[in-house]
């Protein structure tokens, strides 16, 4: 080593060493906070999933089953034959880069393997090696890689770092749905027992009790009674929702977080006030007690199984049609998969509002409408008496939840409800809402707390937009129509846009809805004093 001058010694290169993308190694120990705990053996056993065992990603040996290479290869082959879309997505990408800077995880981290194109390439490289002649002949030169345990570890890391939000697919000129690539990659990982507990436990619970939290019917009822007591204290109105009532006109299906978690419970109170106001012939079910379907993050068979429970219950109760609550991915399942999995739903009727007579032709196939569609129609027809000043202490913006926005095009209805229920509504910047909305970074099973650093990293784009409207318009409420959003955006705002709270749309509707026989209502549903009554200014 030659002599270096003082100036040369001071020129230290701090840049991280360049890495070839084909190198699959991931240091899980060093990257704690960016991956999720693996599925517990008991949950895999309950679902009959292969290779149940207790393990950790930091283990050197992931205890893959005997013949895992063949299991993955055969599973890949089967899916390429079964899903033409997968074959097309593997072949058609020209690596134009349109998707590269659209993923919230890439935008927040700069990790090249969070670019949707490169994330897909992790799978595509194995596809080339195993299923294409050029890939076999050209090897690494043609972008092929051999399947090794390290590649599986890399798949586990990066395919459980995609929230299946589909923002990238909005920009793909070929229409490649990278969320579907993630879904299929996760299916393959499941074949050898690689999955995460935040997905597997809700799946197993939902399969057993009908909801992610594993709540049994008596607890379901007790908890709803408890919430109705609280609601009566606040409003003076006693709501007595029916549960498992046969012969009701409508079955109402909601995410379990709405009757258990903060702040979802206030949205639940809003639903109940609305139904009481309308004297609607509607029932909840302690069995179809989950709108969410974590099968979407597991495998197509699991989606089908969990989705079927809801329709089976609709049949058992003899309802005519369904309303779905403020849930996110539930709507992707219903709009994009349900009909070919468990449809056609020929034992139900096309939803028709008993209040306005509106027929929801858009739901002719699945026979379920979003509660925002139902409520927007009521408002449009002048059926609700609202006092938006009761939300004057809130300056509201709306986060388009990925699945209702991009999978069903639900843009206007929630805004219509919010603008009727609140006097102060402000949009976030155009390139962060509607079909371009940024994910909460906690969807697709990633909303657990051990993955918090990754969630906050991926939550930066949404957080920046929230902070912008907070600073510009004094926004203090981020409203949304998804239970996962309500849970994860709360933490996201605490970090990126402090002092902004999260609420459901029907919580704000419940605040504004003038109920016959109600109390003076000095507070909103959270017990926060209503500014208009207090004569106070907004926050």
């Amino acid at each position, binding site marked *: 080593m030659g002599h270096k001058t003082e100036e040369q010694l001071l020129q230290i290169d701090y840049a991280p060493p360049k890495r070839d993308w084909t190198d699959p190694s991931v240091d899980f120990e060093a990257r704690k906070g960016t991956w999720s705990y693996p599925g517990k053996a008991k949950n895999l056993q309950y679902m009959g999933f292969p290779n149940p065992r207790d393990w950790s990603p930091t283990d050197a040996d992931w205890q893959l089953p005997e013949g895992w290479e063949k299991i993955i290869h055969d599973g890949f082959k089967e899916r390429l034959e079964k899903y033409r879309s997968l074959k097309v997505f593997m072949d058609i990408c020209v690596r134009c880069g349109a998707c590269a800077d659209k993923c919230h995880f890439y935008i927040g981290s*700069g990790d090249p393997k969070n670019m949707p194109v490169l994330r897909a390439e992790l799978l595509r490289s194995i596809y080339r090696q195993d299923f294409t002649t050029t890939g076999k002949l050209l090897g690494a030169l043609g972008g092929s890689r051999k399947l090794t345990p390290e590649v599986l570890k890399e798949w586990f890391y990066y395919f459980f770092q995609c929230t299946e939000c589909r923002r990238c697919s909005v920009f793909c000129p070929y229409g490649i749905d990278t969320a579907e690539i993630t879904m299929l990659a996760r299916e393959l990982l499941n074949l050898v027992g690689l999955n995460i507990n935040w997905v597997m436990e809700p799946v197993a619970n939902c399969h057993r009790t009908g909801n992610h939290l594993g709540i049994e019917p008596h607890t379901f009822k007790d908890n709803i009674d408890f919430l109705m007591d609280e609601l009566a204290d606040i409003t003076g109105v006693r709501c007595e929702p029916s549960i498992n009532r046969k012969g009701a006109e409508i079955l109402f299906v909601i995410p379990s977080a709405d009757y258990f978690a*903060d702040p979802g419970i206030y949205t639940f109170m809003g639903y109940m006030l609305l139904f009481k106001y309308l004297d609607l012939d509607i029932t909840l079910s302690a069995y179809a007690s989950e709108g969410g379907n974590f099968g979407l993050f597991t495998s197509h068979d699991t989606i089908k199984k969990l989705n079927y429970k809801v329709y089976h219950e609709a049949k058992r109760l003899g309802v005519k049609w369904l309303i779905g609550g403020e849930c996110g991915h539930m709507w992707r399942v219903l709009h994009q998969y349900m009909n070919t999995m468990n449809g056609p739903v020929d034992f139900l009727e096309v939803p028709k509002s008993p209040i306005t007579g509106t027929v929801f032709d858009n739901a002719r196939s699945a026979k379920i409408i979003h509660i925002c569609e139902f409520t927007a129609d009521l408002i449009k027809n002048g059926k609700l008496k609202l006092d938006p000043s009761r939300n004057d202490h809130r300056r509201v913006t709306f986060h388009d939840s990925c699945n209702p926005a991009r999978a069903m095009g639900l843009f206007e209805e929630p805004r219509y409800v919010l603008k009727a229920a609140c006097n102060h509504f402000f949009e976030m910047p155009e390139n962060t809402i509607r079909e371009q909305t940024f994910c909460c970074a906690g969807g697709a099973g990633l909303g657990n707390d051990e993955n918090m650093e990754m969630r906050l990293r991926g939550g930066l784009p949404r957080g920046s937009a929230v902070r*912008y409207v907070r600073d510009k318009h004094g926004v203090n409420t981020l409203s949304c129509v998804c239970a996962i959003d309500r849970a994860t955006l*709360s933490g996201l*705002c605490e970090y990126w846009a402090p002092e902004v*709270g999260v609420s459901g749309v029907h919580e704000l509707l419940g605040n504004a809805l003038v109920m016959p026989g109600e109390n003076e209502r000095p507070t909103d549903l959270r017990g926060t*004093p209503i500014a208009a009554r207090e004569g106070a200014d*907004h926050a």
Partner: protein
Amino acid sequence: MPAPRYPRAQSSRRTPEPGLRALLAVLADHRERLVESWLDAAMASYPAEAQGFFLKSTDPFRNPVGATIAGAIGALADGFLAGADPASLRGPLDDIVRIRAVQGLGPAAALRFVFELKQVVRTVLAEAGCSEKLAQDGVFLESWVDALGLASFELYAAARERIWEIRNRDVTARTYSLLKRAGAVEEDDDSCGRPVTGRRPVHVKGGREE
């Protein structure tokens, strides 16, 4: 889209010595070069593929990492050139540190950019043929960077602690109504006095206060 805006940095109450004024004047003449070099140094901790993206777009919503860091480095540089008290620059400093605290960089790599200002200044002065000014007035640079570095430690630790607070609150929020029914939580008395803030502060009985 507007980049994050910061209040104009205030000069410290003590008027800089004439020599220091001259040093800062030379650097102010090369502000663009100073900011560009400092930004490049900050960006060097990211993978090469990402640096281009972070530096390319100034839209704070398309590229919040790049736009925020660029805006904040500019504000810090202006503060330095104005001889401002580093304590008055916590806003832009926090914007950078908060991002880097969740990017898996580790504390040293996350905060290295603060200390790299020393090398950036040396380089800019050398290019301007004024290296001798640093020999006379380098103490200001040393102590200014040290003060900014100490402030960045505090902000980094606060950001990391906030992550754990959010994790704690997540766990409580998830089963909030169960805990409440079991009488296991107490509402914070103050929470009702505030119109709308983040999550309701909750104390889990028998646990550490959040």
